[in-house]
């Protein structure tokens, strides 16, 4: 019975969102605001259950999963930084939240260097260092170099650089077109999924 009620709720919300295709209307606004509300609660609960509880409360307050007392009590540091973030609620000491922001910015910046080198830059360069023994490899290498030339704005685009950038645009446009087509198909796939839910799970027109 509960799953039947749930299916009717889901079908109602699906139709309410699709009603926007006609025009903006109260049913769509209802579903939209409901979505924001449940998503906010979901984010809070998810963060509590998968971040704050296992990473802070369990090891520091309950002492679970930590053998070394240092590992336990060092967690006071991020807890204090977290509380400093909440200093924004008190205007007189709101500037203290900068300390917490700085910690997150510093970690993100550090990861910006190491993560990009390890995860993006080196693998992409390694993947481009190909033997020039096939048309595909030549096209790939030329495409990467000319795309980089197109985005290189430190020199004026004239002469050889202009010619390179022009070829780069061809690759970029082909790539954008392919990515666009790929995205459209992903969205269509979701649309088919929702329509399938309506006619199969809700209306039981197909089995």
């Amino acid at each position, binding site marked *: 019975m509960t799953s039947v009620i749930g299916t009717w709720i889901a079908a109602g919300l699906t139709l309410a969102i699709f009603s926007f295709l006609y025009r903006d209307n109260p049913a769509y*606004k209802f579903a939209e*605001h409901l979505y924001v509300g449940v998503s906010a609660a979901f984010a809070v609960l998810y963060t509590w259950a998968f971040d704050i509880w296992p990473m802070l409360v369990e090891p520091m307050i309950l002492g679970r999963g930590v053998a070394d007392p240092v590992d336990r009590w060092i967690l006071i540091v991020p807890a204090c930084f977290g509380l400093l973030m909440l200093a924004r609620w008190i205007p007189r000491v709101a500037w203290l939240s900068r300390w917490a922001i700085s*910690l997150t910015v510093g970690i993100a910046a550090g990861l910006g260097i190491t993560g990009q080198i390890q995860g993006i830059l080196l693998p*992409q360069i390694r993947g481009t260092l190909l033997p020039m023994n096939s048309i595909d490899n030549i096209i790939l*290498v030329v495409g990467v170099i*000319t795309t980089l030339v197109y985005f290189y704005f430190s020199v004026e685009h004239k002469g050889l650089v202009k010619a390179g950038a022009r070829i780069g645009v061809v690759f970029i446009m*082909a*790539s954008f*077109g392919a990515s666009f087509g790929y995205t459209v*198909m992903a969205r269509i796939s979701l649309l088919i999924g929702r329509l399938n839910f309506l006619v199969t799970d809700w209306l039981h027109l197909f089995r």
Partner: protein
Amino acid sequence: MKKEIPLLITFLTGVIIVVTFFIPHQPFGGMQQRLLIWYSIVLGFTLLLGVDNLLRGNIRRMARRQAGWGYAAVLMAGFVICFVAGVVSLARHNSLIALNGPFMYVYTYMIVPLQATMFALLAFFIASAAYRAFRARTLEATLLLITAAIVMLGRVPVGAELWDKLPQIQDWIMEVPQMAAKRGIFIGIALGTIAMSLRVILGLERTYLS
């Protein structure tokens, strides 16, 4: 004081992350992992600020009976329903994602359909955007049109019915020209991120303190 200490914190944490990457031994080994945990914890507290802002704004709208206050009430109701379901799931099942818990019920029958339908709705708006973008007026627009059409047709059975080589051409576009431009863009993004991260760590970029 109000700017120097934050700059020092950014510098130290940034340098520690970089150093631990190159020296994966004690006392540096494990520091990156520890800082990542700290990062998640602090971000968890940050979320409270955002949610507080959202709820406070909507409660104010309701209290002052401003235009659309009924929708603010719907938002608040959605928040309360999902939050209570989560708390009950945690209390009864000791887990947020217990399959028979009320939170998973809300997730399955409210969050999933709302989210999936929102994204599915974009299919229609992408189609109207495609009409404007794909008018073959220039070489670039023509390329965009041709590659998008091949990729779309090559990924569905009707494409193979029209021409059996279409799926192979689609694969080639994705693996060679598309990959080439994407690699160039990724390398550019990585170099840009590294440069910006260095500016932040060295204190040259301070906009986050304003």
